[in-house]
């Protein structure tokens, strides 16, 4: 479980997050939705410690992040997996080296042990014959899958994904979404996903948080989204003609 209390974050005069309170559940895919520029990436980066919030608290389990000592911080780093908006694979390394990287930095495993684990997660994301390829030789969808493999190789407790399926065709996007949901249930981890893709919401939205103008505007499950009367939600989701139709049919 990850909980946040009153997170504020500004860049100069631009106040991006204006006090967000919420809770992300274990064994669930928690989706953060909101318009482009609404601060989803900033929020996610605050959660994982890449941005320091101006004020507010983040809890991992029941411990305050600001009270972590060095040893706990190091452990937390191993418990966090992150998939970046642009995959962020190390382009000087092959797929295998990318996925092996966290293991080689933070465990004392032998090369053989690491390789076993690497191949295990690579086949988990259905990438069996790409070990020796470089990121530049992969398609966007394959890169995303390598990034997911790298994020889960250390068996994290928390998985953060920044728009894991942006820029992918609908088919591949659904494959990635389902993969994330399966991993979440299988490993019983807390997964937090940024997205503005309504398809993802319909596929895997266990718990949805809608961010607007720096506040949490709405929270609920995908089913609740079909029935809510919140005007901001309606405006956001009704920009998709498809979703509008789906909602109408659902409600009839």
């Amino acid at each position, binding site marked *: 479980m990850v909980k946040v209390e009153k997170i504020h974050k500004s860049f100069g005069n631009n106040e991006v997050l204006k006090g967000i309170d919420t809770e992300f559940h274990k064994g669930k895919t928690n989706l953060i939705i909101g318009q482009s520029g609404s601060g989803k990436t900033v929020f996610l980066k605050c959660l994982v*410690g890449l941005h320091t919030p101006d004020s507010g608290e983040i809890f991992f389990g029941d411990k305050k992040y600001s009270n972590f000592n060095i040893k706990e911080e*190091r452990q937390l780093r*191993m418990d*966090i997996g992150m998939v970046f908006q642009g995959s*962020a*694979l190390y*382009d000087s390394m092959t797929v295998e080296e990318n996925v092996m990287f966290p293991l*080689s*930095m933070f465990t004392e495993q032998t090369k053989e042990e690491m390789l076993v684990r690497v191949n295990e997660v690579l086949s988990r994301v259905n990438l069996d014959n790409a070990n020796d390829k470089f990121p530049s030789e992969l398609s966007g969808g394959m890169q995303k899958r390598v990034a997911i493999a790298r994020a889960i190789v250390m068996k994290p407790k928390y998985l953060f994904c920044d728009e894991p399926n942006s820029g992918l065709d609908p088919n591949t996007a659904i494959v990635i979404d389902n993969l994330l949901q399966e991993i979440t249930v299988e490993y019983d981890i807390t997964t937090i996903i940024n997205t503005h893709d309504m398809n993802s919401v319909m596929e895997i939205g266990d718990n949805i948080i809608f961010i607007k103008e720096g506040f949490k505007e709405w929270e609920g499950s995908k089913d609740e989204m079909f029935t809510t009367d919140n005007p901001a939600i309606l405006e956001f989701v009704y920009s998709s003609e498809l979703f509008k139709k789906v909602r109408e049919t659902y409600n009839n």
Partner: protein
Amino acid sequence: MLIFRILKNLGGYSLFMTQVFRKPEKFRVFLKLFFREVDDLGMSSVGIVSFFSFFIGAVVSLQMAYNMGDNPFIPLSYIALATRESIILEFAPTMISIVLAGKVGSYIASSIGTMKVTEQVDALEVMGVNSISYLVAPKIAAAMMFFPILIVMSMFLGILGGWVASVGSGVCTSSDYILGLQSYFKPFYVIYALIKTEFFAFAIATIPSFYGYKVSGGALEVGRSSTLAVVWTSITIILLNYILTQLLLV
């Protein structure tokens, strides 16, 4: 104001440098990165350094011959002596370092800058890797270890180029040249050159890294910061050259 900008960058650079030596990686990891940097920063520059050194050495010896050749009171061997001194004191350590600032500096700034804008640096940090130490420390070690080798090589090739040009064009004989090389040789000059080189190597490894780290945005910013990195590294080398010469030779 330029002066404020310089002070701000100096402050930023100092803070940056304190990060480099905090929380180093496992030695095994460091060693692997170190050898990769030796390859990327050092070995890959052997060709261009050889080419520059040989031909500049040739030109320097011909200019010396042109200046001294008509004067019957100056022995021909002085062509070699003067060539040797200018190459060891100034050309090899300083000019080659400027060349390296351009070649290696732009490579460092743009590769780190690209890692920054593609969130590869963030990916390191999220995992708990001190990205500054991970990326910069091996570069410092590789540059400080390998650049002196390049500079010594440059000295030899420059002097060799001088020999080929002056003997080849008949301005002096081979024995004049060799006699000149052996006269009044001060080993301290080589040490002075190598001390300078170590300072320049540190600047070439760290200043472009700092500029690479400052990048945010996209490809345009990467290009800009790589240009700035080369400019400021070269300026630093020229200033350090002056300061170190005051301290070591005067």
